[in-house]
């Protein structure tokens, strides 16, 4: 058992008896979790839920893909002030379940229409982005990977301001602006065991406009993130190589290309629009998003999903379709591939790197959610994924023979307490 797991078990043991509300001191401890099992029909590429996972699913039962546990503390500080803290344990970049602090913020609500929050908070760049770890809150075994896969930012160190007003009876308009830096907990595994690309520290600003009705929710959001970190050594080596050849060949376009490979030269802009309708037993969710990068070779992305479910007593059968498309910016390598083995190797390295930033695939899924007990749901889901085998952004450790097609079977037990 790792140190992280031990810390986690002690924390859970300490906090579980507190899982209740105490009216007098305004403290409430609660939690959520998922136990999951998944299986991939292919042994040529590892299926991951998010790029922060260091290992994915192959042809043997995998329990780290969806399993996670969260604990939350809500403390009323009197009057209009409150504190929310949350820690989440899930499979992360260093192959452990070491918990990270996902929220720790103060909320101030001086009137019924204004709320200000400051600290470490979630930012819902996309619909449900800030509750993607709470399986119990959505229909599926996991949020659509085609949609959330590229969205690695989960927490923000900064503040947000929300203004709510009633448009008319039963229809509310909510506007939110947020600013800060992405929290340091988001790390993408890279290279050797335990190595990673940090995603923290990026300057982020964003805004959300949302209309809430009894059955309908419509939202539009925008965010931009400016990375502050450099890529790690193997990628900066590619960049240095490109720069050296650009100088040697006096090729300004190649120099431009080298610049575009830099993380810091790419400002990521996220635009998203979504609809959620739940009237009677029928529920429909449709969301589309666009991620734009810089002028360099790192591609733009477009993605979306459509989910339809129908409640029949304790059961909700559902259908989910999702798709992601990369809009590749042309990759210019000049005379590089013809200049001998060293230059050709560099060209191949750059191409491979860019290929890892691309995703082109469609997923069709069928599933069933069973609310068999208060605050517990059991789900089964089958995903069929078909995509371009060379565009491997959403896959790990792709082996020869990968054809871009896989079927994923999953079972999860979601709970809140």
């Amino acid at each position: 058992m790792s140190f992280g797991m031990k810390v986690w078990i002690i924390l859970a043991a300490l906090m579980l008896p507190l899982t209740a509300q105490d009216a007098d001191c305004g403290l409430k401890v609660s939690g959520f979790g998922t136990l999951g099992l998944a299986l991939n029909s292919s042994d040529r590429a590892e299926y991951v839920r998010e790029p922060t996972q260091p290992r994915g699913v192959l042809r043997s039962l995998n329990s780290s893909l969806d399993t996670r546990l969260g604990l939350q503390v809500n403390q009323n500080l009197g009057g209009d002030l409150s504190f929310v803290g949350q820690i989440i344990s899930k499979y992360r970049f260093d192959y452990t379940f070491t918990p990270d602090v996902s929220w720790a913020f103060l909320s101030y609500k001086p009137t019924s229409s204004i709320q200000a929050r400051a600290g470490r908070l979630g930012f819902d760049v996309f619909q449900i982005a800030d509750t993607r770890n709470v399986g119990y809150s959505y229909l599926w075994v996991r949020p659509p990977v085609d949609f959330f896969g590229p969205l690695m930012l989960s927490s923000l160190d900064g503040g947000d301001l929300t203004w709510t007003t009633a448009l008319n009876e039963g229809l509310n308009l909510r506007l939110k602006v947020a600013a800060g830096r992405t929290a340091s907990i988001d790390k993408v595994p890279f290279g050797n065991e335990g190595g990673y690309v940090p995603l923290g520290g990026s300057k982020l600003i964003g805004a959300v406009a949302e209309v809430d009705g009894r059955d309908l929710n419509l939202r539009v959001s925008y965010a931009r993130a400016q990375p502050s970190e450099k890529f790690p050594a193997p990628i900066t080596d590619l960049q240095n190589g490109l720069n050296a050849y650009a100088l040697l060949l006096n090729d300004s376009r190649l120099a431009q290309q080298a610049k575009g490979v830099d993380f810091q030269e790419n400002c990521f802009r996220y635009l998203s629009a979504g609809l959620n309708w739940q009237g009677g037993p029928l529920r429909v969710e449709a969301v589309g998003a666009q991620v734009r990068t810089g002028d360099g070779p790192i591609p733009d992305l477009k993605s979306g999903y459509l989910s339809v479910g129908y409640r029949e007593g304790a059961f909700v059968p559902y259908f989910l379709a999702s798709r992601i498309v990369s809009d590749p910016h042309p990759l210019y390598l000049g005379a590089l591939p013809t200049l001998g083995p060293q230059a050709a190797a560099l060209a191949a390295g750059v191409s491979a790197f860019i290929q890892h930033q691309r995703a082109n695939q469609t997923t069709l899924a069928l599933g069933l959610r069973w609310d068999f007990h208060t605050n517990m749901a059991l789900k089964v889901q089958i995903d069929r994924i078909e995509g371009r085998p060379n565009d491997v952004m959403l896959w790990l450790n792709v082996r020869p023979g990968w054809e871009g097609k896989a079927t994923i079977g999953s079972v999860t037990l979601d709970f809140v307490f």
Partner: protein
Amino acid sequence: MRALSLMRCAPLFLAACLGLSPVRAGEPVVIVHPDSGVQSLTRDEVINLFMGRQKRLPSGRVAAPVEQAEPPATRARFYQLLVGKDLPDIHAYWARLLYSGQAQPPRQAASAEEVLEFVAANKGAIGVMDGARVDRRVRVVLDLGK
């Protein structure tokens, strides 16, 4: 549908015969403290308060919503009448609001008596309970069964 409406009318008829309060037995009602400054609430106002969208009563007081959790049928009937949703959907909805740090779900009271006691003791309280168990300590501001 006909059978259902007959069934809904039966307790009313019974109550009328027995000379009891006009509130139908078994149907959930929304109650407040007599000194809350609230005389009545619309269905949309109650939706906003119980679905975490509004945190103050129309009188300006910070609202403290409380629900009768037992038997679950009372709550289930309340949310079916209020927003046409089943309890698992309401629980999933609250999981999203709670764990994104936006709002906290209503306090759960174990019995009708507990709801009455809490509402009678707090001027900001707003409760949901079995209409047949309401007494003079509180004021009914919305009868959804009507």
